[in-house]
């Protein structure tokens, strides 16, 4: 049996991106990313992330309205697909409530992942295929959702390009909010536009 790399991204470079994106909020490299992924060989230098601020949005929750921390909008400045995927994964891990994240194509093949097994990522293939029929129902978008895996909740969004569909997903104890899914979708579309 071969041991395919589930993680294309370099843990060190992702940690550096996280540190740049968040400043003092995140500890030095070797934090969350290092726990989530095996150490990979050094990758090429990635573009410095530039994150545009968006105003905080008040969200009405079940226990009353609560202001959520502003999530900076992801902006991609590199033309290199691997750098773009690295940055998207780092942004997702840093700004969404999750223990793992992945980017896959619509066949369920992993493009980048941290903290989730390749087997779980491969669920995306049949999942998106099954949703094709659902999307034929007028008024149903079905390009985002959540799936209970038994011990974790996988939340995902999908974006399509002329080269096919791409999926950005997270795993965590709870499903992401619709606001978070919209943020993920925007970030994914920004990223795959240049692949």
């Amino acid at each position, binding site marked *: 049996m*071969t*041991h*395919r*790399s*589930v993680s*294309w991204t370099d843990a060190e470079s992702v940690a550096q991106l996280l540190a740049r994106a968040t400043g003092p909020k995140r500890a030095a490299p070797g934090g969350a990313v290092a726990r989530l992924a095996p150490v*990979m*060989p050094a*990758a*090429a230098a990635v573009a410095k992330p530039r994150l545009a601020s968006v105003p905080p949005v008040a969200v009405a929750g079940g226990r009353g309205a609560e202001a959520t921390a502003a999530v900076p909008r992801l902006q991609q400045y590199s033309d*290199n*697909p*691997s750098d773009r*995927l690295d940055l998207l994964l780092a942004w997702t891990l840093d700004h969404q409530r999750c223990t793992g994240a992945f*980017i*896959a*194509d619509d*066949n369920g*093949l*992993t*493009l*980048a992942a941290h903290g989730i097994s390749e087997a779980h990522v491969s669920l995306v293939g049949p999942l998106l295929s099954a949703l094709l029929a659902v999307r034929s129902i007028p008024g149903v978008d079905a390009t985002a959702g959540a799936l209970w895996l038994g011990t974790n909740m996988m939340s995902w969004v999908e974006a399509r390009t002329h*080269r*096919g569909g*791409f999926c950005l997903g997270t795993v965590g104890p709870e499903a992401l909010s619709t606001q978070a899914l919209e943020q993920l979708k925007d970030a994914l579309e920004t990223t795959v536009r240049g*692949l």
Partner: protein
Amino acid sequence: MIDTKLLDLAVQDLRNVLRDGLVATDIWDRADGLTLAGFNQQPVAVALFTRITSELESSLADSNFPPLARYYLLDMEGSHTVAVINHGSLLQGVLVDNKRANLGILISVAIPRMIEAVAKAKAR
């Protein structure tokens, strides 16, 4: 007429995408086996995959199977994957270390970009 400078740029782009997961690649004319661009070029592999591709295509045709489309893959011992990309009159072999790269990047990003880039080089 094929613009070999564009082929060189395409190979460089492939190296950027696959990073150190790319072990070797060659783009060659399937009629004469002449390599037009590459990285860590492998003349023996060029001859081998010209023959394999030719036999695969004739076997598919003889069996009334659909013809070869964009590529085929070989999973090799030692955690290596070979992708042979069909550019029409040109073929391309891509040897990938699958501990350092993954199939998703190869199939959904690297191969489509390579096909577009080689098509542009052939159109010049």
